[in-house]
């Protein structure tokens, strides 16, 4: 398989095969990002398709910074498109309720990635966005607050809520599959 630089060079020359190759290589990665933000697969696929159109039409502006930089850039575009989609189609709500019983945190690694991704997507929109931005996009609470127009404290507390809700979901999953 060609490396990113060769692929980029071919795409910049208008090579449609290279474009398709880029799509084939990163479509799974793009889907995994979208699925963390958006619960419905159909909507995720729309976002991924739209993201690749943006990627391929603005790839000339991308400044190659070594192997992996293209993947990072693609991930950023998909995440931005997914955030945009959630902002447009969902009312961002923040939860105040904490699960009744504080569970002991199960090992994250015991949950298969597709199940864990689906659990994140099932979180209420507000804490789901904050968890994604903090854990996967490496935003600070201040940056999240600016991005979503909320207070820093809200961002911090909603991350704790997301963690608690995820813990509950993971515990339930383990219980279901152990029995």
């Amino acid at each position, binding site marked *: 398989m060609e490396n990113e630089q060769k692929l980029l060079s071919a795409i910049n020359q208008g090579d449609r095969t290279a474009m398709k190759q880029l799509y084939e290589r990163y479509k799974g990665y793009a889907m995994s990002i979208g699925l963390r933000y958006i619960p419905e697969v159909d909507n995720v696929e729309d976002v991924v398709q739209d993201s690749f159109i943006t*990627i391929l039409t603005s790839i000339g502006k991308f400044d190659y910074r070594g192997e992996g930089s293209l993947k990072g850039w693609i991930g950023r575009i998909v995440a931005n498109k997914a955030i945009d989609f959630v902002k447009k189609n969902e009312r961002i709500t923040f939860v105040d309720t904490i699960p009744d019983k504080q569970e002991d945190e199960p090992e994250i690694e015991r949950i298969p990635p597709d199940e864990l991704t689906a659990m994140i997507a099932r979180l209420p929109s507000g804490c789901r966005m904050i968890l994604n931005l903090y854990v996967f996009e490496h935003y600070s609470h201040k940056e999240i607050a600016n991005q979503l127009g909320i207070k820093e404290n809200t961002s911090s507390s909603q991350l704790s809520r997301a963690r608690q809700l995820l813990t509950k979901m993971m515990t339930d999953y383990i219980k279901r599959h152990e029995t």
Partner: protein
Amino acid sequence: MKQEEWAKRLNEHLKDYHQEPSKDLWQGIEASLDKQAKGQTRLIVMRRWLMAAAIMGIVFGGSYLLWHHDTPTQPQLAEVKQSHKTEHTENVSKELIAQTEESYTQTAKSTIQNTREIAAEEEVINKSQKEESTQPDEKATQPKVDAPSPQVHRPLPLEHKTPHPHTGSQQHSPQPLRLSIGLFARGNTNDMNSKNGVIMNPEIMHRHAATRAYLVNYEERESHDQPISFGLTVGYSLNKWLSVGTGLVYTKLHSEFTTLMPHQQIKRNQALHYLGVPLNMQAHLLQWHGLGLYLTAGGEADWNIKAESNTDGINQVMNKDRMQWSVGGSLGLEYRVIPQLSLYAEPGIRHYFDNGSAIDNYFKDKPTSFNLQLGLRLNLNTTK
């Protein structure tokens, strides 16, 4: 488990997770790419047509103004010619002759050189008026056929003085339009500017461990493209050596801000569109054959009419920049291709004042810059 550690483990666990789409998305992507390519071609063609239309508009608009400016003198000439024709071809009645003489007398009065002729004419007129008032109607018509009379001779001085009405029409015609209109393109001549910097903000450095590791090679870069301007100008000559000018100038600024991290970068493109109104004073230093050398100095106010920001392909909301003031000067060289049309080149210098906004752009990065303006000018001052 601490929040940072938990976040890191969650991130690591999903890092390599891939999920294939349930259907083939490539067809839709390819169709959209084809559609966009066609749209871009159409846009390029449309832009070319618009530019051609603008140039044609200027050329024809200028030509119309030139033509319109000349027309007022023509009816006067026609009237004069017509009156001459009438005098030569028809039997002139006394009343008509008297009117012609009166009008001629009025014209002649304005010319000092013809004082003596006016006096002579007045005598003739007085005499004819006396004849009209004293002689019966039958007698009044007789001299026309029988003998040369002062009335027969009257057309001669008129014929002789035919240049005078012409001169009069020139003297009384409206002042020529001392206007010029023009089109120009302006670009800066500095090297492309860029700035690099490493963020050392302690607030950012206090992020969780994963992010802190991320920030080891954190770097931000900004680069600003040369501004490019297109404008429409109107100039008015105060005298042979001085003229004032104004117009409408469109300027586009493009900047790129890049945040660099290991294996990842965030790129933000910023485009600012300005519409400006310049006010310039022009001093013409030298005019030799078709060449002209002049100095221009003045100020310009630019309003940011549109601000665009795009991060990694996603359009972001961006506030418009504040009004931008600038002053500049240039040395211009003009070549007059035909009397009405000249081409010019103006190398110059311009200083942009800090407008106090937080928006980074070329004007803030390079407040003083050199530029080159190229254009064409339609001179509506035909007598110059």
